[in-house]
């Protein structure tokens, strides 16, 4: 094991806040802890403060309050020592349009004091190959598509062996194929032991690629933890497919299912609390088994085509936390 179990978190923030000049708090008292080796999804709708947080972590803007540390060292004080081990993609790629892809990378590499000019060529070639841009390396960056620019930005983040990658919405603006490739690359990098801190406004993206997540809304952290744990904390929805939808809904309601909705041959609802038997249960207070619900339906003559509980998703978790949909901008 290369990383001692006591290793400091890859990213740590305490009470981190930012108020832009004349604005309200863009980030409000953020406490964040990103374990080493995790793929950490920093999730939040547009305007929730993700990019602002990332800029503070990387020392680009001064926090109004609070502290940040990367790889166990305080930022921005130790920026010169920490950042060579950190690759970053911040709010989309920014390139010199009049330079070729290769020359763009040479430019960013020349800015890194720890980058050895003697190995520059080889490292640039490796980074270009890694993101699949080898063939377009000699083209001027202004002729690149957005997807190619994004990849070149990622190549710049991979010019040196990194311990941490900070990727701000790396799939933003990409077509579905580009998104798939970017996510595959992120998984691959994570597989090599690099901690990945990835911001996203896409719930399914975080569910697909991340081991851990933190959820932001309006500058505040709602929750953080392993993805599986968060999703599991939310009760799934009961879903019944039946040609006798109306009857099914009636029977389910009689058995304590709430929040019922009927759409065509689909009936969904929140199953009664299976674990506890709150005081509300009218008679008997016996835990309701899903099998009993199914039996009740069949017993009432409802023809059931499919019966099951849809797993709780991050979106359910988000809605449960905020009481509002995920797409609400902050």
């Amino acid at each position, binding site marked *: 094991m290369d990383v001692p179990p006591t290793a400091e978190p890859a990213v740590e923030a305490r009470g981190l806040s930012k108020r832009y000049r004349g604005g309200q708090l863009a980030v409000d008292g953020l406490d964040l802890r990103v374990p080493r080796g995790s793929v950490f999804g920093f999730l939040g709708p547009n305007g929730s403060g993700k990019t602002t947080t990332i800029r503070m972590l990387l020392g680009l803007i001064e926090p109004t309050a609070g502290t940040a540390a990367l790889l166990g060292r305080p930022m921005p004080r130790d920026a*010169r020592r*920490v950042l060579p081990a950190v690759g970053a993609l*911040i709010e989309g790629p920014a390139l010199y349009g*009049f330079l070729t892809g290769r020359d763009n990378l040479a*430019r960013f590499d020349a800015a890194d*004091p720890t980058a050895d000019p003697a190995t520059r060529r080889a490292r640039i070639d490796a980074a270009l190959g890694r993101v699949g841009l080898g063939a377009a390396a000699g083209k001027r960056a202004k002729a690149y598509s957005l997807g190619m620019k994004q990849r070149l930005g990622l190549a710049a983040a991979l010019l040196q062996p990194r311990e941490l990658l900070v990727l701000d919405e790396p799939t933003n603006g990409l077509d579905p194929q580009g998104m798939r490739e970017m996510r595959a690359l992120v998984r691959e990098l994570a*597989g090599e032991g690099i901690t990945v801190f990835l911001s996203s406004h896409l719930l399914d993206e975080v569910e697909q690629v*991340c081991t851990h997540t933190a959820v932001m809304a309006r500058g505040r952290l709602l929750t953080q933890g392993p993805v599986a744990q968060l999703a599991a904390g939310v009760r799934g929805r009961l879903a019944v497919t039946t040609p006798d939808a109306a009857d099914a809904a009636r029977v389910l309601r009689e058995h304590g299912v709430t929040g019922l909705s009927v759409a065509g041959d689909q009936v969904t609802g929140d199953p009664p609390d299976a674990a506890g038997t709150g005081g509300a249960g009218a008679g008997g207070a016996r835990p309701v088994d899903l099998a009993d619900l199914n039996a009740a339906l069949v017993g009432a003559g409802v023809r059931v085509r499919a019966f099951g509980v849809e797993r709780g998703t991050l979106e359910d978790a988000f809605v449960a936390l905020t009481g509002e949909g995920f797409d609400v901008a902050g």
Partner: protein
Amino acid sequence: MSPAEPATAASEGAATGPRSAPPSAARWWWTFGLLRSELGVTLRRWRTLALLGILAALPVLIGIAVKVETGDGGGSGGGEGPAFIHQVTNNGLFLVFTALAATLPFFLPMTVGVVAGDSVAGEAAAGTLRYLLVAPAGRSRLLLAKFASVVVFCLLATLVVAASALLVGVALFPVGDVTLLSGVTVSFGEGLLRALAIALAVTVSLLGLAALGLFVSTLTGSGIAAMSATVGLLITVQILAVIPQLDALHPYLFPYHWLSFADLLRAPVLWDDVLANAGLQALYVAVFGSAAWARFTSRDIAA
């Protein structure tokens, strides 16, 4: 579907923590490397090349104008035009002095204002500044590299004017021994050396504006705004410099000693104004360089 496993095979670097200082051999190489990178980026911008092209074309225009004028038999009629213009027909080397005297009040400093004004603000607007800073270039070192590259541009711009003027002068006019302003005649070789010294003096004259432009460049996130503000300041100062009521202010304006370079064409050389010019430029560099540093090292890079 399965999310990536937490790593067990960490990269080599992880074992030793963040790599600390750069290898000492690479260290000063690097500072030079960043300057080289800065210069490369500056000189590969289309805008920079266009400005240098204009500077190269101006002596050609002046040379042709003088040639046409004298070809017409007009002789040295009025006493107007830039300094030294009437000596050009006798000695092509004087086209170097004429061209520098003609471009120094506006064209040369304008190109410096554009390049200096764009240096930080242009990269902030393009977003590349944030990637340089997380590389991490280091704010002080990046600013130093940018100022150094603007200084090199000042020298280059001056040399472009001088070299173009020398070529045109040699091509269109006779050359030979040079009669200095004090009446002494020196060899063409010494004349060339003095031309080089004058080019250096002109470069020094541009440094105050370079520092001012760099400071303006740290104030805004728009390259266009910084460029126009710097060139606007240049124009304003040149206007203030000819308002007699502001006499008391004039010695503190950066162009005050600009034409002192002519003193290098005397024998013996009159150093007073040349040195006063260097001192004034150094003062501007110190004041606005510090201001740029204070601003840039504390500024939020939110573009």
